[in-house]
């Protein structure tokens, strides 16, 4: 294991822990950003440069900024959530134990898989990503797109206030 691998992994793990341990929404969001960047760097380091860069571009550069937008609009006061925090902590430890149990027997296989991924660095180039997406995974890809669109329309409908009367609209203008 090299220094860089440890550094990026530490970023990802610390960020992920921070997301659930930190109380303030804004700091939690920043931890999520750290985690995303750490993961992206790990991907680039493992040879999947294209996927890593896309991760920075889409998650760190766009989706996290949107989250931040929401935090700024909603406010980051999370002081009366001690109970939920305790439940979250218990849930977190339980999940981590489960995950460790799940991974423990697979550890050697994971190492082998990581080595193989590093060796076959061409496997995740832009071209092969595109070929896979538009041939083998075409249907799931399109269905996911349609689902996301439906979710987005749904959010707009749910978040909309009840339709304003014509009189109110005139007042607005």
């Amino acid at each position: 294991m090299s220094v860089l691998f440890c550094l990026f992994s530490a970023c990802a793990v610390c960020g992920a822990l921070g997301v659930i341990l930190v109380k303030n929404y804004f700091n939690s969001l920043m931890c999520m950003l750290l985690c995303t960047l750490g993961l992206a760097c790990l991907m680039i380091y493992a040879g999947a440069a294209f996927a890593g860069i896309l991760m920075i571009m889409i998650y760190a550069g766009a989706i996290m900024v949107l989250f931040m937008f929401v935090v700024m609009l909603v406010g980051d006061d999370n002081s009366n959530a001690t109970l939920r925090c305790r439940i979250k902590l218990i849930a977190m430890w339980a999940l981590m134990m489960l995950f460790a149990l799940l991974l423990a027997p697979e550890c050697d296989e994971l190492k082998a898989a990581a080595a193989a991924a590093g060796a076959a660095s061409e496997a995740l180039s832009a071209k092969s990503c595109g070929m896979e997406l538009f041939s083998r995974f075409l249907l799931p890809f399109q269905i996911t797109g349609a689902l996301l669109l439906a979710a987005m329309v749904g959010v707009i409908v749910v978040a909309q206030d009840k339709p304003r009367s014509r009189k109110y609209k005139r007042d607005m203008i």
Partner: protein
Amino acid sequence: MYSNNPILFAAADAAVPLWDGVLDVILMIVFSLIAIVVVMTFAGLSVVAERKVCAFMQGRYGPNRTAIPWIAAIPGVGTVLRSFGLMQLVADALKFLLKEDPLPNHVNKPWYLAAPAIALTPVLTVACLIPCGVIYADSGKIPMSVADVDLSLILALAIGSLGAYGAVIAGWSSNSKYPYFGGVRASAQMISYELTMGICALTVAIWVAPVTGKPFSLFAIADSQSGAMWLCITQPLTAFLFLVALFAETNRLPFDMAESETDLVSGFHTEYGSFKFGLFFVGEYGHVAVASALFATLFLGGWNPLPGLSWPADWGWVSSVLCVLTFLVKVAAMIFFFIWMRWSVPRFRYDQVMRLGWQCLVPLALANFVFYIILRAAM
């Protein structure tokens, strides 16, 4: 892509002696520092240029009296330095350094202190990716960029997209009204215009892919324009849309939403003073310089003097020097264009910015993208 990169794999691969890796790392750090110095110089000079061009357009002289006593006394040189306002630059920098550094009580201190650095870092990082020339060696063309990676175009866009955080964190951590509005506006605007920028970059990548085989490499894109038509001639609409998106991404007028001083005092950096404000200020002009360099690389032929012409390869190092000079001239011309637009076009209203971004630029960029795919397939 990185399998041959000695820096990343020096520690992992026992066949490479460790010392080679260390030397490479030191060299890389030196190269990066040079890139940073160049960007900073450009940023400083564009501050002077902003004042002088603005003065010229308004029929004034601009700064022409600031003088450092002994240097101004040198005949010839001193007069030129003074009348071109170059010593004003020194005065500005000293002012930012020596002023009292206020730390308001109501701010979120760690993020408030970190925000200027977060705003400046992506700009300097992107600068390391841009190829500013070419060296003709026996083994072929060697790009003159600090980090020549195959995916440099999307890497530049990805790191550039992190630039929104500086403004947003500054706006949020200042904990007062106007910075908050500036931060919210900055985040919404940057996300909206990144989309147009990304689609335009893809259009370019699709167009050069059959020629170069490396669609996302900035060096390959610039190199595909040497001795050929520039991309701003073959793709005028793409170039225009990309330019508009660049104006929005750099927060320059007419997209000056994040710090529109007529309605938001000075937007996200209202609470900042002295050197921390100076970092935002330098970051903004550095952003302009890097955006100019990106535009010159993608659409203005990079280091080539004229469309269809390139500096001959058999001139050796002379050719390389001319390449770099050509590139710097193009960057300077683009910076001038940025400044020119600032003093010519009035600011948009915020809803106009959003409508322009989503209802006009994005559909236009998509249609343009599809058009060039069809054209490429037909050729």
